[in-house]
């Protein structure tokens, strides 16, 4: 393709590592930024768990530094900030940059055989807009009255000047707006790159499923993040210019606006957003399961169709977040039906995963373990979703810890394990070094066991009636018997956090002193593994010509001729041997 010239490699430090146009460098920048905020959001989570285990008691280690005014204990005002910012930071500033910023940038051009993104400058702007939004988040903690405290959903009236006065909430909403702009810039890039820059022969049905997942995510991002942008914009106007979109009640003029309106806008975006956070993981896991089971992905086209269907359906189910807002029963039931319908493609995908690993030659590498863990927690999370989609059950479970447990299993646990599957999988390619396998396995077992236990604990207390977001749940007599279970869950949470130390050690040690990685350490067919680790600045010396799909494993003819169980996507193989099964079929037919 003459679309993609080879540009000379930049030489100065700034153009190479800071304002880089190179998608690989930008991906790493997103990865660092995301991991940093993952630690930030994780720390906030631990503070919440501490409060639920030992309400009003001083927090060890950090307490005196963070809350000197209360002798180290979490105060109600601080608690509101903590749980609000935990959610926002994890979703917009940790998982999004890791899954979409890092993997999107890194994998899409390499896996489709392109030299870079379609718009490298836009890509760089996307990164720096994102960094700006992270700075806004940090700034929001430093202003008077602290950061946002209206819950991650920023519902009015809590998020209006009545509920959360002070600059902090405004800065947080502005940060979300800015990060939305960054996401849209990235999305435009991903969508266009996949449409235009696929290598010759890389047809849509030969794309790795990772690319499919990321591409569909990009479409959702491009279409629905602007809706959140609008909502944020109007909220900022309400907060700073005295407009009356969401203000109601005694503080309103002429009847005021409608707080529920914000919920509509928020969830029109918000429901696609949960698929934005899981579709890349679905793609990555669909690929890694096939890669490490050494079998072709089961029913590739079915997986693609299922992911596409989920993408479409995700746009029309948002009402299930609003069953309790007094919507018309007919509308509620329609949303219920559509929501339950989305489990059909999700199930197809899930069965495809199980069929992919069924009787495979499993290689239990660290990325494979994380993928299997993701399948497990996603299964649990998906099943609990059926409870909540049902209106009659949701009336009881709405706003309880059951909801928290459910969406943490899917959005947090599954995305978290999926992200690490991706990090361990592409680390050798990204940094040209291997990660330590022992530490990786320790990290996996710590993560998967405790992440499941933490969120299962939340499901159980939620089913027993514990509301979410309570500062001190045990001030209610009906919840006092849950004190022990909450404390136990908190200990699981602390163990989960402690397990991450294995990753931190492993990551830093491997980045700087890991053993040099080979070009194709996992013996995989996709394009990125056919070039050096790390890839050269222009990725491919010659744009490859693709001749087959991404999961060419376990062909006995290949094994016989080449002595290995895989063929890379560009590898020619003598026609007669590849088409042997087809010849047999033709024979049988005649």
């Amino acid at each position: 393709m003459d679309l993609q010239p080879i540009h000379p490699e930049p030489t100065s430090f700034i153009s190479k590592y800071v304002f880089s146009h190179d998608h690989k460098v930008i991906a790493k920048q997103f990865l660092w930024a995301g991991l940093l905020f993952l630690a930030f959001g994780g720390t906030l989570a631990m503070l919440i768990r501490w409060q639920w285990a030992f309400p009003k008691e001083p927090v060890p280690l950090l307490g005196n530094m963070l809350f000197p005014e209360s002798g180290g204990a979490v105060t109600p005002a601080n608690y509101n900030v903590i749980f609000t910012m935990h959610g926002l930071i994890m979703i917009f500033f940790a998982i999004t940059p890791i899954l979409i910023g890092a993997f999107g940038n890194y994998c899409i051009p390499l896996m489709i055989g392109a030299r870079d993104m379609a718009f490298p400058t836009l890509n760089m702007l996307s990164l720096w807009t994102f960094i700006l939004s992270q700075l806004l988040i940090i700034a929001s903690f430093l202003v008077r009255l602290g950061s946002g405290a209206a819950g991650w959903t920023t519902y009015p009236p809590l998020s209006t000047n009545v509920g959360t006065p002070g600059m902090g909430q405004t800065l947080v909403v502005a940060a979300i707006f800015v990060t939305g702009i960054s996401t849209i810039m990235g999305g435009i890039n991903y969508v266009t790159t996949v449409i235009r820059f696929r290598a010759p022969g890389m047809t849509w049905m030969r794309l790795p499923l990772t690319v499919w997942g990321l591409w569909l995510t990009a479409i959702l991002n491009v279409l629905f993040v602007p809706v959140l942008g609008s909502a944020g914009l109007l909220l900022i106007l309400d907060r700073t210019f005295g407009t009356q979109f969401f203000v109601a009640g005694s503080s309103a003029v002429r009847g005021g606006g409608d707080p529920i309106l914000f919920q509509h806008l928020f969830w029109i975006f918000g429901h696609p957003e949960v698929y934005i956070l899981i579709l890349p993981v679905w793609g990555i896991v669909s690929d890694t399961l096939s890669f490490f089971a050494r079998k072709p992905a089961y029913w590739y086209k079915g997986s693609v169709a299922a992911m596409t269907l989920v993408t479409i359906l995700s746009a029309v189910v948002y009402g299930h977040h609003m069953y309790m807002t007094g919507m018309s029963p007919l509308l509620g039931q329609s949303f219920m039906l559509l929501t339950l319908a989305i489990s059909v493609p999700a199930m197809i995908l899930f069965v495809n995963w199980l069929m992919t690993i069924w009787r495979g030659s499993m290689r239990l590498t660290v990325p494979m373990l994380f993928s299997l863990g993701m399948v497990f927690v996603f299964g649990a999370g998906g099943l609990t979703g059926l409870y909540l989609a049902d209106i009659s059950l949701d009336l009881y479970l709405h706003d309880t810890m059951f909801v928290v447990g459910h969406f943490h299993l899917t959005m947090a646990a599954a995305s978290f394990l999926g992200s690490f599957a991706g990090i361990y999988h592409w680390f050798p390619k990204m940094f040209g070094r291997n990660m330590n396998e022992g530490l990786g396995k320790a990290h996996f077992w710590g993560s998967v066991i405790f992440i499941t236990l933490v969120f299962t604990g939340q499901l159980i207390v939620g089913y027993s009636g514990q509301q979410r977001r309570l500062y001190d749940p045990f001030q209610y007599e009906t919840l006092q018997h849950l004190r022990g279970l909450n404390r136990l869950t908190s200990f699981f949470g602390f163990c989960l956090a402690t397990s991450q130390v294995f990753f931190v050690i492993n990551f830093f040690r491997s980045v700087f002193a890991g053993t040099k990685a080979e070009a194709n350490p996992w013996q995989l067919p996709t394009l990125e593994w056919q070039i050096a680790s790390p890839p050269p600045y222009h990725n491919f010396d010659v744009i490859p010509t693709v001749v087959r799909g991404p999961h060419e494993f376990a062909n006995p003819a290949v094994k016989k001729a080449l002595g290995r169980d895989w063929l890379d996507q560009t590898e020619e193989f003598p026609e007669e041997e590849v088409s042997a099964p087809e010849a047999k079929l033709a024979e049988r037919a005649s």
Partner: protein
Amino acid sequence: MGKVVRYRPHHAEHEWTASIGMIVFLGSWAMMFGALFFVYGIIRSHTRFWPPPDLPAFPLVLPAVNTMALGLSSFMLERARKLILADKVPDTMRAIAFAATLGTLFLSLQLVVWWSLYDKGLSPKTGPYASVFYAMTCFHALHVLVGLGALGWLGLRTREGRYNAARHLPIRLWTMYWHFVGVVWGIMFVVLYVL
């Protein structure tokens, strides 16, 4: 490593890529405006009296003139794009200048509309009726302003002779953008002022 092959970028291919990027961007932005229209619909359906009895109704004449101005401006820019395809550089520049003048006329009249309404006591703080009006028109005007900046830049660069029949990608992209802004205004005119 294999030999490094140098490619000469083929302009038409590059234009196509950039156009797709622009279409995706405009689709995204359409959702942003779509959300604003959604807000308008919900607020209006919840308000018993529209306009509220003590607040001024929106004018019709000036916005109608504005609609024509922006429509004509869009048409002129489309003409500019056709003219540059025929390599008529001075004509292109004149067409762009005309489009920009009409855009400026639009913004000036919009200022008059805002000012007259504000004068009659319609400030953004006077309830949702005013909020939604100012938010939508201002957000749109901001896009016109960006477009005007772009048209000025395009005009200057056309005068410098940077564009010809083969190379005029920015003109093509900004024409798409300008059409988008015009279409959004058309819908906004009908929804806000006529209905």
